[in-house]
């Protein structure tokens, strides 16, 4: 019940980019298909050609570059990301969020690139990548560029990707020593559910140990795109950390976001949850950073 389309499985990135250009607007990239095939079956999209990126070596795998960056191929299944948690602390943070997507069956198919390019405001890997200030490596006809993830999303289901472009990898810079991050997903079910609200927090303790030198807060499902809560971050940076302060930051984050009311939750409830869960995510990150410092 998906209509008819051509299916192409190029062997190299160059071949894929060529095909994408040739086929024009009726073509789309197919990764795990866990969003795209559902949209086709529900007839939300009408496509004449699917170009699989599943076998492009350039888009596969997780590796550390010599400069300490973690590069995750866009076509890497989330399940593989979960298994690679031991690679680095950055990898562990991404794995924590990836683990919360769908179910193991879904994670075996679903890719990181698909999660980001589908650009759902609730995409579970987005908030944690935002707080780690990841970049999106994008290949287009004849050129590559890197876009900070914060500028990658332009609206629900929309990204900076131009026709003919493919997301190649997500690049996570090495985080400052002593950092810790957390991700809290709030949904009705503990698996196979979409977040009402997702909150990621990253903290880098300051030299005095009393407060955070750097704080990053990422929010999901509460604005047209996954977003950073910069005012809340600013309220914490350089201040002695306390639960009260984290709660205040939560209140600020709640005013920064712009949630909507839909089938899953009301805007009011989402806003309240941003306050609560931001506080909890901050406390969790802080405590984990303290634990890390003690080791």
């Amino acid at each position, binding site marked *: 019940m998906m209509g008819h389309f051509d299916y192409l499985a190029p062997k190299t990135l160059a071949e894929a980019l060529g095909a994408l250009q040739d086929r024009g607007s009726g073509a789309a990239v197919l990764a795990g298909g866990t969003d795209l095939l559902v949209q086709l079956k529900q007839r939300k999209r009408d496509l004449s050609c699917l170009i699989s990126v599943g076998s492009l070596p350039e888009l596969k795998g997780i590796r550390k570059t010599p400069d300490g960056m973690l590069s995750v191929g866009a076509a890497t299944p989330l399940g593989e990301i979960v298994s690679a948690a031991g690679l680095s602390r950055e990898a562990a943070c991404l794995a924590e969020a990836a683990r919360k997507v769908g179910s193991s069956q879904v994670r075996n198919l679903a890719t990181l690139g698909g999660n980001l390019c589908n650009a759902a405001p609730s995409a579970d890997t987005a908030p944690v990548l935002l707080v780690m200030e990841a970049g999106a490596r994008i290949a287009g006809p004849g050129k590559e560029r890197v876009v900070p993830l914060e500028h990658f999303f332009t609206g629900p289901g929309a990204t900076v990707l131009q026709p003919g472009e493919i997301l190649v990898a997500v690049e996570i810079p090495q985080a400052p020593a002593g950092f810790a991050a957390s991700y809290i997903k*709030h949904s*009705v*079910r503990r698996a196979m559910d979409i977040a009402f609200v997702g909150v990621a927090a990253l903290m880098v303790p300051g030299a005095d140990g009393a407060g955070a030198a750097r704080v990053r807060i990422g929010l999901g499902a509460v604005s047209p795109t996954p977003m950073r809560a910069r005012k809340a971050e600013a309220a914490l940076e350089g201040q002695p950390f306390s639960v009260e302060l984290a709660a205040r930051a939560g209140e600020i984050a709640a005013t920064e976001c712009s949630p909507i009311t839909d089938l899953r*939750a*009301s805007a009011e409830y989402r806003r309240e949850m941003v306050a609560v*869960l931001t506080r909890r995510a901050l406390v969790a990150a802080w405590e984990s950073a303290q634990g890390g410092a003690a080791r």
Partner: protein
Amino acid sequence: MPDFSVVGRGVTRLDARAKARGETRYLGDMSLPGMLHGKILRSPHPHARIVGIDCRRALSLAGVKAVVTGRDLPPHKYGYLVQDELILARDLVRFAGEEVAAVAAVDEDTAQEALDLIRVEYEVLPAVFEMEDAMAEGAPRIHDVERNIASRVVINRGDVERGFQEAHLVMEDRFTTQSVHQGYLDPVSCITRWEDDGSLTIHGVTQAPFIQREVMAASIGLAPEQIRVIQPAAGGGFGGKLDQKVWVIAAVLARAAGKPVRLILSYEEELTAGRPRVPLVIDLKMGFARDGLIKAKDTGILADNGAYCSYGPGVISVASHRSDSLYRYPAVRCDAKLVYTNKTPTGAYRGFGNPQVHFAVESLIDRAAVELGIDPAEIRLRNAVQKGEVTIHGWVLKSCALDECIKQAMDASAWKEKRSRLGPGRGLGMACMVHVSSNRASYRPFDGASALVKLEGDGGAVLTCGEVDFGQGNFTAYAQMISEELGIRPDQVKVLPPDTSISTFGLGSSGSREIFIGGGAVRLAARDARRQLLNEASVLLGSSPDELEIEGGIVFPRGNREAGRSIAEVAREAVYRGRGLGILGRGTFDPGSELPDAGKYGNISGCYTFACHVAEVEVDPETGAVKVVDYVAAHDLGRAINPAGAEGQIEGGVAQGIGFTLSEELVSREGRILNHGLLDYRIPTPPDLPRIRPILVEEDDPVGPYGAKGLGEPPQNPVPAAIANAVYDAVGVQFRDLPMVPERVAAGLAGRSPKGRPGKGAA
């Protein structure tokens, strides 16, 4: 309790291996030569007049073999209890999702494409979605009945007014329950084929092949016997497969196309146009003496029927009085109304009205206990009915282990140590339940079952009957019964799914009747086969039947096993000596239930079952998330034929109950279901479930086979109240509206109702 060799022992289900290996062939795996694929066009409007339908473009699409609309069909009505539906709408549609036309084509894609080419012109009519609005003066009439009231049940027994006057405490509140889908994995489906002689063959899963055939026959102008229903392997039903108009649509498509037609609903169709649970609004008032004894109860029920009746009238009948046989009520009154609205028709779902009402009653009792300063377990023990009693509605309790269930659930859950003594946000809650095991009122002529057990030349046995295993495992229990009686292994028994042209008549799987009634017949058929076997063997062995014994597949004179003959040999001989007929045991069983009178007085079932559940929860006071962390479910089931199967029934029922309580809800706006996918219709997944600890409380029932009673529906009944009471214990707020999703709980804890979400409000 007497001991048995196979009955009462955990046995691997006959179908377990194939199911675990993915080898079971469900309807979706089957096809017939030349078979076409059917699809249904549904109304987008909740209430509209059909001005015209133009099928020409659809008919001219390559691959389309038939298009059928309501105007192509004779105007026979369809319906189980009330015939208020057409096979396909003619002039009016009454809910968004109603069947308007159907297409048969060479494949599903073509059929789907053809649906898009059918032009239907509608004139939209004013619609009503709330029951109060539907009953209001001047409301649009959905059917030709006063105030859109489809059915009404009034119960009045004892002096309710005096009871309230004498009461020390009177509690009153409104409880609401939502519409939930049965959630089976295997959607409603069938393959229909017209035979050369004009009869109709249907392959499809139904819980009641013989009843389904009667209803279908009336709606397409056939005699029931002209329809042959053959059951394939079934992937669940839970009440949802007691009413399948889809089969009739597939039949008319097959007739129009002159080819077999397969029709399988999508899950979107299941969720928008299935037959989900009837939502109730329950106004409950109860009076209690100072010592907690119940003095009187008064209930007002509004039941949202949706656009057609299906099983609605039966559901409100159950809702009106079934829970009254749990305690010693001196006086009860109930006024239950079933109201038509322009929404998806509702129907039968595990418990049939009972889970909804138990939620209300068991919640209010808990609050009364707290008000009176009595332990909630104690107030239940004080009111509990006992074996040997006749309840307020004339139900005769030949067995009853309610007390024992309460005590065992208390012990297992550490009730005394934990209730009201857990840390902040944690609590323990209890709820009890009563249920029937068969329902004399559901099919008036008869409340029994029959079975045939044929002995095979290899020493095995074949069972045929009109009963259904839609996944519960009762066929394995039947095999155990036959194995017990005949001295063969359970895996030597083959249980054939019903085929209405071959099986003896049966009512099928509803009303928790399959072990108690179906099993009753199977046991007697097996005994008859044993009697015949001994007779045959006595001729071969030259000794009288009562000197013979059977063990390990051998029939032998007592004390002389060497002289014995194998069952296989005796059965083979019997075939020749009987000129082919062989050993064919017959059994029929009727539990002696009686049809209640117009006021619902009468011993409606052959036995009654009881249970006590205790839930332990953790409530997140900020997010409103409720997590069930432990769950004990003690069930009075007479005797477990297959304890592993009984535990599975309890675990499954509790899991479904947790979904009903915490996450599942068909949300509609203006009559249209918004969450028509399984992502937003949230059936719990394994991480959402606690450890469920079943307790089998076994006290033989004098009527049931081997003392067994029914366990199909009961495990879901107490769940919502057990959880709501645990939340009450944890946070001091009692939630009266299901489901208790986080947003609603958070709002309730903050002392306000949630805003802005579609669907109903109020914490």
